[in-house]
């Protein structure tokens, strides 16, 4: 979606410290040139296909469809990307742009670690130095991803400021960029931040919706009636929705994280129920969760990737216009939806994507049998094994961890004795 000089209605823009002006302009121009350069586009498509495995399938879910007895349910399988999430589409695009700009280092923020891992993967492949900022709390919660980032050669910096989550990681990444902009690129992971990041990330993610257009035509001869995506920063939702924007018959539903309840601090609902308010922070204008004095607030979701205080200015604008309908799913509904997909279709969804499932499952029984819905399965759930085990109150999991720890410690002490 083309912005109006960086704005989408009243949202977006570029509110950055003066020190970043020149670098921001450089990205703006490099992106404009690159997207009009057939060689760049060819390399992008080649990397998407041969490194990340695109196009990803559009999978019909017969069992789920029968289960609900309403709309025919399809999943867009972004979980099958290299790295296990749609994040890969964007990092490939931006990393190729980094090479084009002649920069040698990338900085990224990450919440759950999915964008961090994706950035570390592409950096390893393209020979870029990579620094990942991650809230200290998230480092603890999502250690397996931290482990892989380090193995991939990235430097992971735990951010001890503030609430030690994604918002703080983003602030810290911006600070790094303020000192390192001459040789570093801020590889932002979602459709947020100053212009042109929302537009650029949405551009790279739009491959999702473009493929759905072709695949839906091929599989059932028309476009879907409704689309569902979870909305954290908004990148997978932008990716699925934006190519369908002009198709007036295609309805779009964004699902935010209802968390544990609607009190401030318990959820990440910015775009419905009047919970978010317009603000300008972290480089752009959008709907933020904030108090009356304009201080940004804590958020919560069982899915770390949706646990963010702001939201894409593109989604905020389309929601305000009524083009996208916004809803939310609570933590427990999300775990139920995840469980249902496991059992009915043999697919392990990420908890982020399970929000889209939960939103769609509420509507599916009430939709006509001949209607077709596409749910963006933005990521796979392997990374959530610890959280899902806990949410499902699985009693054997702690036993596994204890055994694993005992074995690990034995292994370490054997090694130490071997060295002595």
């Amino acid at each position, binding site marked *: 979606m083309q912005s109006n000089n960086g704005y989408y209605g009243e949202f977006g*823009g570029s509110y*950055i410290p003066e*020190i970043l*002006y020149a670098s921001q302009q450089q990205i703006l121009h490099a992106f404009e040139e690159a997207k009009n350069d057939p060689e760049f586009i060819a390399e992008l498509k080649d990397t998407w296909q041969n490194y990340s495995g695109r196009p990803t399938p559009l999978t019909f879910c017969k069992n789920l469809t029968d289960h609900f007895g309403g709309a025919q349910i399809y999943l867009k399988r972004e979980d099958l990307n290299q790295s296990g999430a749609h994040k890969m589409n964007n990092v490939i695009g931006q990393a190729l742009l980094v090479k084009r700009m002649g920069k040698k280092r990338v900085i990224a923020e990450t919440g759950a670690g999915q964008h961090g891992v994706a950035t570390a993967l592409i950096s390893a492949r393209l020979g870029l130095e990579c620094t990942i900022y991650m809230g200290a709390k998230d480092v603890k919660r999502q250690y397996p991803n931290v482990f892989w980032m380090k193995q991939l050669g990235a430097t992971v910096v735990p951010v001890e400021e503030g609430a030690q989550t994604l918002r703080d990681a983003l602030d810290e990444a911006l600070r790094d960029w*303020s000192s390192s*902009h001459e040789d570093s690129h801020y590889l932002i992971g979602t459709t947020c931040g100053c212009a042109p990041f929302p537009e650029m990330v949405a551009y790279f993610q739009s491959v999702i919706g473009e493929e759905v257009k072709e695949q839906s035509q091929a599989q059932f001869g028309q476009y879907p009636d409704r689309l569902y995506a979870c909305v954290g920063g908004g990148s997978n939702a932008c990716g699925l929705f934006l190519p369908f924007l002009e198709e007036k018959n295609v309805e779009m539903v964004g699902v935010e994280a209802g968390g544990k309840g609607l009190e401030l601090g318990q959820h990440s609902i910015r775009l419905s129920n009047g919970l978010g308010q317009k603000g*300008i922070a*972290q480089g752009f204008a959008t709907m933020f969760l*904030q108090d009356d004095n304009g*201080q940004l607030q804590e958020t919560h979701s069982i899915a770390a990737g949706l646990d963010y205080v702001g939201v894409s200015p593109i989604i905020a604008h389309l929601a305000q216009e009524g083009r996208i309908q916004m809803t939310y799913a609570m933590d427990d509904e999300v775990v139920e939806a995840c469980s249902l997909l496991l059992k009915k279709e043999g697919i392990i969804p990420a908890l982020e994507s399970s929000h889209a499932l939960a939103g769609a499952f509420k509507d599916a029984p009430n939709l006509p049998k001949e209607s077709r819905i596409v749910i963006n399965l933005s990521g796979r759930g392997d990374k959530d094994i610890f959280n899902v085990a806990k949410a499902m109150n699985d009693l054997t999991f702690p036993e596994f961890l204890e055994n694993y720890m005992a074995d690990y410690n034995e292994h370490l002490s054997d090694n130490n004795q071997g060295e002595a």
Partner: protein
Amino acid sequence: MSQLAQYIADKRQQKPILSMTHVVYGYPTVQESLDWMATLLEAGADFIEVQFPFSDPVADGPTIVAACHGALHDQQLTVEQCLSDIGQLGRDYPQSRIALMSYLNPMYRYGLEKLVKRCAEENIQGLILPDLPYEQATELRSYCDTHGVDPVWLVTPVTPKDRLAFLASEARGFLYCVARSGVTGNSNHNGGERQSLDEYLAEINSHANAPIGVGFGIREKAHVDALKGKADVAIIGSALLDAYNKGGKEEGLKLFNGLFNA
């Protein structure tokens, strides 16, 4: 000439360089921060740059970030109360001036028009918002023109030359020159830049339509002395806060006196 520029010009008749000291409002408490400001004014600070804390201060380094978070931790700070408090301080020390610094969001929530009007009422003549670039500030500039408050623009060593010339010519009150890349608090004073600080300031001076303030990285008397004859105001922030954190008002005052009254 704006009130603020006039003030600087007049004071510069008596002093080779003016001092601007940065204090975070509400850190560690509102009263302690106001006492600290009064102490600095008593010691002859020409300006206090009062930072109204924001939860996400992206242009600041660790020292100031920690102070902002500390200030917001256990208390509700309101812009209204801050303006009243620092307005009173300004009336208590009429020989000095107070500038308000913050990030856009708390100010936006308070209302930009109301903010500028209230600043004028409290004789706060300068407004520094590091995440509001000139291009995005059309509204704010018009309110400032109406009420005689100066929006303070920042330039940096990596600001493109034509943009630097433009911002310098648009300067009101004073132009805030960042001495190096990065966030506040880094001690590497203009280190490793392609251009020397002198050349950078000369370039700015050739375009500037207002006095020049220099900040970011000033920690020693030599840094302040190096600005004499090239700039009008030396701005100290993180170094002063570091001293204050180390030994309270006494340590902070020692640094201030060492830099400006020695």
